[in-house]
């Protein structure tokens, strides 16, 4: 048979449990705007019953734990998508800066090519005229300058991207260090059966941020997680983090090393992945096309020069400095090799009035002198490649942003704090608390009755 004291204890368990439940509501409401916070939910279970033969009585309620509501699979999807978002975001932003060099203006390469050939055509109408010859030298100089400027801008952009790689790696190292620390705190708490929800939220948030920087794989194990790079090198194992290193290579750009291994080429996504793609693939590809353009122009013009005669009847010499044999760096280094306009080999017969060689030089405008294409056609191909790469990166970024937004919506619908729900919970806990208090008050008056029974 149960006692009034036992009932008092049972009612008290209700008070304590509802108070605890109200505490989770309070915490949820406080964290309504905390990034990465997963709402918490009290786990109330009825306490073990006591058997007072022949009856079994309940002994109230226990606040067994407070659990964070989250979907680990969804979170890992978000981390993957965040990697893509970081990659395409940085790639798109890099290429958008790159393509500014290729928008039409008075000094762009396309216009310079046109102006150069225009000046030769004009010279052809009066090959002995020194001012027309000077015009050719000037436009050749402008062409060289526009190629130099664009090539140098691209090189500068690559070293800016390189700086960003180095900075991002140090950011990655900070994140992995923090994650390793959190791993320690989480396993300490969980080993003693405590709720580590808040720390797990923080860790999830950090992994999200890390994912936006680099592609990591998250491998959960007992009470902890292991983070590895795409090629399987450990970044975080339990409470230990492994720092990534950067080291300048022969071209002055930095490679990324994990535990002594060069992993630069294996990093495919995240901000670093996108930056590396721009630095090591996309921009170098454009540079090499510009080099082909510069080398093709210089070689073909120089070739025609050598076949003609200058104003003094002397065989022509190079108009442009000869490009490097490999062609690498041709766009950055091309310059006009002569300063005397008389040295332009416009004549095909050695006489000042002959324009035969100027005509031959003009014909280069529509000849397949660069990879089977005319200079302007080749340059328009470069424009297409630059525009296409940029447009693709931007489209990928938008698509990935949309997916990420939907995933985040989904996560918020599971883990986000709803003030409506918290208000309803609060009312519910408050009412239960009042009811338990009322029960205690009733037991109290019953106690009084019992006590008064003796004295009366």
């Amino acid at each position: 048979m149960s006692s009034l004291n036992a009932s008092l204890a049972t009612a008290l368990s209700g008070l304590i449990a509802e108070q605890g439940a109200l505490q989770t509501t309070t915490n949820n409401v406080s964290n309504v705007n905390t990034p990465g916070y997963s709402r918490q939910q009290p786990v109330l279970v009825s306490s073990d019953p006591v058997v007072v033969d022949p009856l079994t009585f309940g002994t109230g309620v226990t606040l067994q734990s407070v659990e964070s509501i989250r979907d680990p699979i969804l979170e890992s999807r978000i981390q993957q998508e965040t990697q893509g978002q970081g990659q395409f975001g940085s790639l798109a932003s890099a290429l958008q800066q790159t393509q500014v060099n290729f928008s039409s203006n008075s000094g762009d390469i396309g216009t310079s090519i046109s102006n150069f050939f225009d000046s030769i055509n004009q010279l052809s109408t009066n090959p002995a005229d020194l001012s027309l010859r000077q015009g050719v030298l000037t436009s050749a100089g402008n062409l060289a300058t526009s190629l130099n400027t664009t090539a140098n801008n691209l090189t500068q952009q690559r070293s800016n991207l390189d700086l960003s790689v180095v900075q991002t790696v140090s950011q990655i190292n900070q994140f992995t260090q923090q994650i390793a620390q959190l791993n320690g705190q989480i396993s300490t708490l969980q080993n003693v059966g405590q709720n580590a929800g808040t720390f797990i939220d923080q860790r999830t948030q950090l992994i999200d941020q890390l994912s936006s920087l680099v592609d990591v794989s998250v491998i959960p194990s007992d009470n902890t997680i292991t983070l590895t790079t795409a090629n399987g090198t450990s970044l975080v194992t339990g409470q230990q983090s492994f720092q990534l290193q950067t080291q300048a290579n022969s071209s002055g750009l930095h490679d990324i090393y994990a535990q002594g291994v060069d992993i630069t080429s294996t990093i495919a996504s995240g901000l670093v992945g996108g930056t590396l793609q721009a630095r090591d693939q996309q921009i170098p590809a454009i540079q090499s096309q510009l080099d082909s353009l510069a080398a093709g122009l210089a070689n073909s013009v120089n070739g025609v020069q050598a076949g003609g005669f200058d104003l003094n009847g002397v065989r022509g010499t190079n108009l442009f400095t000869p490009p490097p044999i490999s062609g690498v760096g041709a766009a950055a280094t091309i310059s006009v090799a002569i300063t005397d306009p008389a040295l332009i080999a416009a004549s095909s017969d050695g006489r000042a009035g002959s324009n035969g060689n100027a005509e031959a030089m003009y014909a280069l405008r529509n000849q397949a002198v660069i990879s089977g294409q005319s200079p302007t056609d080749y340059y328009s191909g470069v424009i297409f490649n630059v525009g296409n790469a940029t447009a693709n990166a931007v489209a990928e970024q938008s698509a990935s942003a949309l997916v990420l937004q939907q995933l985040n919506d989904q996560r918020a619908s599971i883990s986000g704090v709803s003030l409506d729900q918290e208000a309803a919970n609060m009312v519910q806990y408050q009412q239960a608390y009042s009811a338990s208090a009322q029960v205690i008050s009733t037991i109290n008056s019953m106690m009084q009755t019992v006590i008064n029974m003796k004295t009366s």
Partner: protein
Amino acid sequence: MRVNPNPLPDTLVALAQTQQQINTDLQQIASGQSVNVPSDNPAAAAELIQNSGQTSEADQFLRSAGSVQGEIQNADSTLNSVITSLQRAISLGVEGANGTLNSSDRAALATEVTGIQAQLISLANLTYQGNYVFAGTATQTTPYVLNPSSPSGVTYQGNTGVNSVTLGNHFTLQTNVPGSKLFSAPGNDMFQSIQDLITGLQSGTGISTAVNEVSSAYGYIDEQRVFYGNAVNQLNAQQTYLNSETTQLAQQQNKLGGADLTVVISNLTNAETARQAALAAVGQTARINLFDFIK
């Protein structure tokens, strides 16, 4: 079903998207171009490069045609003067062949023809913008100098070179005829015929033969003059063609890269409406929740 309790980030994304659309539209309206950077339309951007290359080339062809035109017109009118001079020489020769003239009359005629010879040399030494027009490609050398020891009375110091200038994608125009072909062609040597006429008038023999030679040279040069007349016609035709090509290229450029303002402005209006609606939605949501109703 549980829904995302905080849709504000989504609304902000929507706001950013409409703002992006508005920025793009405004840029297109301001520049009048739908392709402002290559990624706006890579294929059109590439075609625009080719288009502007072709436009630049056509404009240059027009300028070069203008430069060439002056020289050719000058040469043409000079040849006209040559023909007039030759006509005068012929009539002097015919007069000299009249047996009634005495030697001093003929000497006077010979002096006049010598004057014509000097005139012809001067005409054949026409310069245009610092170049001798009838010197072949030796444009810096005086083509004809008087040389009493030469049978033709002159020496040709030019060469046989001709220049052609590209004035269209499949159009090159020969711009000169060298003196060697015009005035000193074997069998139709103008200066030889004039020299023969002078010698004939001075000696009183072979005047008629010399007159025939001059007539023949006259006919030959008149024939050669057609070259310049044709060149002028071809230039005019090419200029007409280039002008229409420039217009077509401009139309094509506009089609490729010009902003369709009607569409852009309508897009802009839509984007602005969408943005206002999104803003109003954010304002309306006003973050009311159950807490506001629990007293």
